[in-house]
């Protein structure tokens, strides 16, 4: 049986995609295999298929987002779904009451897929219990952002040919990052060696219990790494005093060629975006086409999200075995 057939038969064992935690290596491999096929589709002139024709996808964003929402919108449209966006500026919907009211209202409109982002950890899980359709977590508070971890994994796998046994450093503001949490889970499941690097105020020591080695010295942490994942400094979530100044932060934790020199010569650089140039990453490094995979990540994002929308609707569509 060819690999493609294998992917076509895959049935995802969960109703929703709420996080990476709880997924199995084979689930992740299947999603990545399928996403590889969608990368090819997206590079054709005609990018559209009709597998989701007749299905309705609602993107429900309680937190501002441009790139993730657009990525999901493109993913849905390229598969032929009817896609509707519903955003709320932070202030109007912050109370959970409204969250569940919104959920039940939308549920009554019979959507098949709900893509949800919310500022509170656990909010998407709460919502998923109140609706009948598949729910896809597009980021909940500081908890998880599963499609980001999946697109990162796809980017790594395509460049390095594997994920297992690679040494991967996640750098910067881990404390406030759902991307870091999802990546730590995913890379552990796939057998990579995970390091986290950042100041002690932004890197909880107990990350060891989640399967990451903790470093506070950037060069020490980057030594011998295959992949360097930078994170955005989420100053909007910080109420004062996590580090003294931006310039001190950049000096100690900003990725530049000097610090990068201790990583493997072919180490690739990633960033989930949006970047703060000169804060967590030097502009030259970010634009270095041989090292930086940042643009590729955006491309992989659409493909991975198409794969997720596909597998979450397979039972409903009678696809797969």
């Amino acid at each position: 049986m060819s690999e493609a057939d294998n992917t076509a038969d895959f049935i995802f064992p969960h109703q929703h995609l709420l996080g990476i935690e709880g997924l199995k290596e084979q689930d992740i491999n299947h999603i990545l295999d399928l996403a590889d096929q969608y990368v090819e589709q997206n590079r054709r002139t005609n990018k559209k298929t009709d597998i989701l024709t007749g299905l309705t996808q609602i993107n429900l964003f309680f937190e501002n987002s441009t790139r993730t929402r657009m990525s999901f919108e493109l993913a849905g449209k390229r598969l032929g779904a009817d896609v509707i966006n519903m955003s709320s500026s932070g202030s109007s919907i912050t109370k959970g009451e409204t969250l569940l009211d919104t959920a039940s209202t939308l549920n009554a409109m019979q959507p098949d897929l709900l893509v949800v982002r919310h500022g509170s950890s656990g909010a998407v899980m709460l919502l998923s219990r109140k609706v009948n359709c598949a729910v896809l977590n597009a980021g909940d508070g500081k908890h998880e952002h599963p499609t980001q971890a999946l697109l990162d994994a796809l980017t790594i796998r395509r460049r390095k040919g594997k994920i297992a046994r690679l040494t991967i450093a996640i750098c910067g503001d881990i404390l406030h990052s759902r991307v870091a949490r999802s990546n730590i889970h995913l890379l552990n499941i796939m057998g990579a060696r995970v390091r986290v690097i950042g100041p002690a105020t932004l890197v909880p020591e107990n990350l060891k219990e989640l399967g990451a080695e903790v470093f506070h010295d950037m060069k020490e942490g980057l030594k011998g790494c295959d992949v360097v994942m930078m994170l955005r400094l989420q100053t909007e979530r910080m109420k004062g005093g996590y580090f003294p100044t931006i310039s001190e932060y950049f000096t100690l934790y900003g990725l530049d060629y000097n610090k990068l020199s201790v990583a493997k010569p072919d180490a690739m650089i990633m960033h989930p975006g949006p970047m703060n140039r000169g804060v967590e990453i030097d502009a030259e490094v970010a634009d270095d086409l041989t090292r930086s995979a940042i643009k590729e990540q955006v491309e992989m994002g659409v493909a991975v999200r198409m794969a997720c929308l596909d597998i979450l609707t397979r039972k409903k569509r009678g696809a797969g075995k």
Partner: protein
Amino acid sequence: MSAYTLYKNARLLDPESGLDMIGQIMAHKGKIADLGKEITAPNNANIIDCHGKCLCPGLIDMRVFVGIPGADYKDTIENTGDAAAAGGVTTVCVQPVTDQIMDDMARVEFLENRAKKAKVNFIPFPAITKQLEGKEMAEIGLMSKAGVKAFTDGNKSIANPALMSRVLKYASMFDALIIQHLAVPELSENGVMNAGALATRLGLPGIPTAAETIMLERDIRLLKSVSTRYHAAQITCQDSIEVMKAAKKNKMNVTAGVAIAHFALNEYAIEEYRTFTKISPPLRSEEDRVAVVSALKDGTIDVIVSGHDPEDPESKRVPYELAEAGVVGLETMLPVALELYHNGFMSLLDLLAKLTSNPAKIIGLKAGQLKVGYPADFCIFDPDAPQRIDPETMVSLTKNTPFDGRPVQGRILKTIVAGEIIFEV
């Protein structure tokens, strides 16, 4: 109807005297008239056969929040009284945290008047500081003179050390009990659960145990120069327990309580963001929970409370970070506490002391003992009867219990206040 009621064939349990025997106890005009193996009762006495079940002093709960005045939709005094009765609790100590803060004599009297309609005794614990703001002292002197025995800012700490120092000095003149909620605001106000690996994994802001222990250490330091009676409302971690243990060893006038949730659950009860597990202080690690059990056993912790805090469903049906803290507990307090007895950690009498005689002595109430002249407030229960905690069968209007579905052993059969049966199954 005779003025005398004889409870016969009861397993009398009095923690204070160590009494544990099958016998009889007689109530007359709301008080205990006599007790013993075989007592002589008037011919016309009402006789109630207890069938060998346990009869102990009615439970005294030092930490109960009510909706009144101002938030009747959450709870009413009557309903709190009914829930207490169903839990064998005959005395409820009301925290000042209501919509209209109980911080002066007028509001204390309002509560006492409303409480006359309820089936159990209500003891007001008014605020230490005006409006619970932690800035100015409430009228501790006037309220003490009018009979108030204890003061607390409920679920807020007196954070300012200068004010706390003055409060302790001032309260000592009236022998008032000062009850402190232990949480350094700056370390706890943004947190929603115990700080640690689980909080990191769930992406929820944590409250370190240091928030509690630092406040306790500071208060103990301030207490070295005054003789005020001080009660730590809840201590929930190993570090605080060590501080409390040392203070007691130094013969300081300090006592401590703990809520049932803190020795019966750990932080993992939160899994999948169950908002019914959100309380203050938060559920702690398993190591801390085990330490709390040991501290109950060795006497470092004197009192068990329900921490009963009704929250309406709407304030719990939200993401964890946005949910109100608070769980109901009056009806589950004894069955859950009995786990300590069934698991062999404590004798029945030692456990009951934390629910009856100890709180009475700390507050200064003539209650909590089976003794002639004391109130005829009893709890009759079967310590072995199995049941599964079911919110649907609870009397409490709000059902926010973290013990939903938990199998327990122990059932309240009858609750008696001032000689009257106010609850029976």
